[in-house]
């Protein structure tokens, strides 16, 4: 019987030839990741059982991203717990503020995660790395603590859902719009426990960074993972970055899927997810007149260089609306440097935007742009839950970098199409 790419990767890491959905397996992990929010709890668990050493110091990634640079004394203490653990166990891939970025943008960019890998991260957006043709999923701190000791974890093999995209992208439409569209169609639990495989001619032509954005939000549909079969675009991205061997897997033609969806790219316009769930998605033409207080461009979803380029294209020669705060957050130091070289940062500054050092920051209401009661933001981030960016009575609308940039200028949620005229 044919297997999906997800089943093949899991079978390989479980050391078995065949695998079926629902099967419980113990899998070897290529990489284990945690951040400043989740690592301290995992470290506490690690130490509580008397563990003395990690399974492999080269296969653990620890990144201060959420409250870093330290927001306050308590956050500083959390970051310190992780830093001291990293030094004690000589963790190869610990990155300090200044070299660290948001983990899900940083790990693919630095070639830490590669096609064919099986990894867990104590952060729900770990599924991002599926875009490289890897199996990547989020876990909690206790699962992570166990994996720090053993280098293994248990999985229930997920059923796979296939999302086939045909046709071409319309103007100003990107990976973010495609994934918001999918979540709008299937709901925030539409892919619960399942692997979401994105395929079709449109995906095969989609740049790597858009694929990363799509897999990043698989969790927003309840998915266990998102995945794209590796192809020439993947190899072009991975080859200059990889420092170890990697393996390419593809789904068999007779692989089994529990559901198959087909979408036509030409029918998808820029999407906006309205409060308070990512499934509350509408085409921008139907969103109406929504005034905003803040516009955020960044996060593990849309803080990459291509995101900043499109935002700068919209903002070039324009000014941010006087009632709006624009906050731009390059996801990694490399994105920051590249944006500097290309003059994008100057464009943001000229427009009246604020530029932050890489951090998850406002996405989860951490710092660097928290909302007051009654305030409304449009953001390239991934969640618009109640109170996600600050006060329980604030609101977040999710959209692409192009839409957020256009909205920052017009002071209301707007399509970049409106700026052309």
């Amino acid at each position, binding site marked *: 019987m044919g297997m999906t790419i997800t089943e093949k990767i899991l079978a390989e890491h479980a050391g078995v030839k065949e695998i079926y959905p629902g099967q419980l397996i113990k899998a070897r992990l290529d990489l284990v990741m945690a951040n400043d929010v989740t690592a301290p709890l995992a470290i506490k668990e690690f130490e509580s059982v008397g563990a003395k050493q990690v399974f492999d110091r080269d296969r653990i990634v620890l990144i201060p991203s959420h409250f870093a640079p330290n927001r306050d004394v*308590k956050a500083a203490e959390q970051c310190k717990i992780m830093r001291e653990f990293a030094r004690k166990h000589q963790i190869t891939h610990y990155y300090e503020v200044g070299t660290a970025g948001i983990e899900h943008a940083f790990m693919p960019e630095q070639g830490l995660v590669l096609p064919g890998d099986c990894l867990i991260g104590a952060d729900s957006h770990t599924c991002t790395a599926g875009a490289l043709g890897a199996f990547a999923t989020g876990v909690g701190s*206790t699962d992570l603590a166990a994996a720090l000791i053993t280098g293994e974890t*248990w999985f229930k093999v997920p059923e796979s859902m296939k999302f086939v995209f045909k046709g071409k992208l319309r103007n100003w439409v990107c990976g973010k719009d495609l994934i918001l569209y999918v979540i709008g169609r299937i709901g925030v*639990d539409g892919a619960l426990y399942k692997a979401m495989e994105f395929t079709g001619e449109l995906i095969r032509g989609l740049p790597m960074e858009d694929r990363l954005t799509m897999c990043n939000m698989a969790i927003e549909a309840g998915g266990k993972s998102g995945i794209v079969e590796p192809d020439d675009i993947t190899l072009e991205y991975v080859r200059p970055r990889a420092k170890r061997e990697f393996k390419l897997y593809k789904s068999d033609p007779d692989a089994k899927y529990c559901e198959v969806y087909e979408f036509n790219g030409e029918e998808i316009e820029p999407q906006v997810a309205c409060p308070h769930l990512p499934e509350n998605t509408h085409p921008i033409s139907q969103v109406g007149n929504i005034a905003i207080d803040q516009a955020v461009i960044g996060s593990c979803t849309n803080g990459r260089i291509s995101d900043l380029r499109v935002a700068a294209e919209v903002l070039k020669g324009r000014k941010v609306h006087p009632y709006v705060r624009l906050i731009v957050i390059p996801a990694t130091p490399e994105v920051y440097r590249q944006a500097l070289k290309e003059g994008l940062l100057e464009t943001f500054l000229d427009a009246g935007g604020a530029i932050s050092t890489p951090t998850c920051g406002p996405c989860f209401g951490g710092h660097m742009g928290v909302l007051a009661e009654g305030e409304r933001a449009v953001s390239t981030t991934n969640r618009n839950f109640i109170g996600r960016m600050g006060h329980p009575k604030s609101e977040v609308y999710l959209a692409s970098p192009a839409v957020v940039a256009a909205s920052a200028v017009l002071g209301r949620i707007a399509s970049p199409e409106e700026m052309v005229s």
Partner: protein
Amino acid sequence: MLIRGKAWKFGDDVDTDVIIPSLYLVTSDPEELGKHCMEAVDPEFPRKIGKGDIIVAGKNFGCGSSREHAPISIKAAGVSCVIARSFARIFYRNAINIGLPILECPEAADGVSTGDQLEVDLDTGEIRNMSTGRVYRATPFPPFMQELIAAGGLMKYVAKQVGLARGSD
């Protein structure tokens, strides 16, 4: 194991930002996390509930972030069990790993109201609504999870496996 408590009803898609807002993620102290459980939707919740009470919710409970602080805060607030139509998968794993009993039962999620007195048998999955007399059946934990729970949670299970000294206590 038998659990008795009063039901507190919540809707669909209760996310981890609602269960414990990010503001409090700078601590892993259960007591502190318990003080802010569910406050984004009900600021009085941590003070209203009694020890052993039970959360009953709709579909996709615990969706969103992987923060283990969410089940920890529920457990520390005094909640003995969560019954829902369905759970988000990371929350499901986390709850089991930290020893917060959870049961999937659509019929109970629909049939129970806030204030009902419930009796839950974790071994059989039977949920008895003492206020209405109705009985619901949830699927009990599969054997491998019972083993994990019997070991005292994931860390003790792992510690035993790799022969760490403190695993057996």
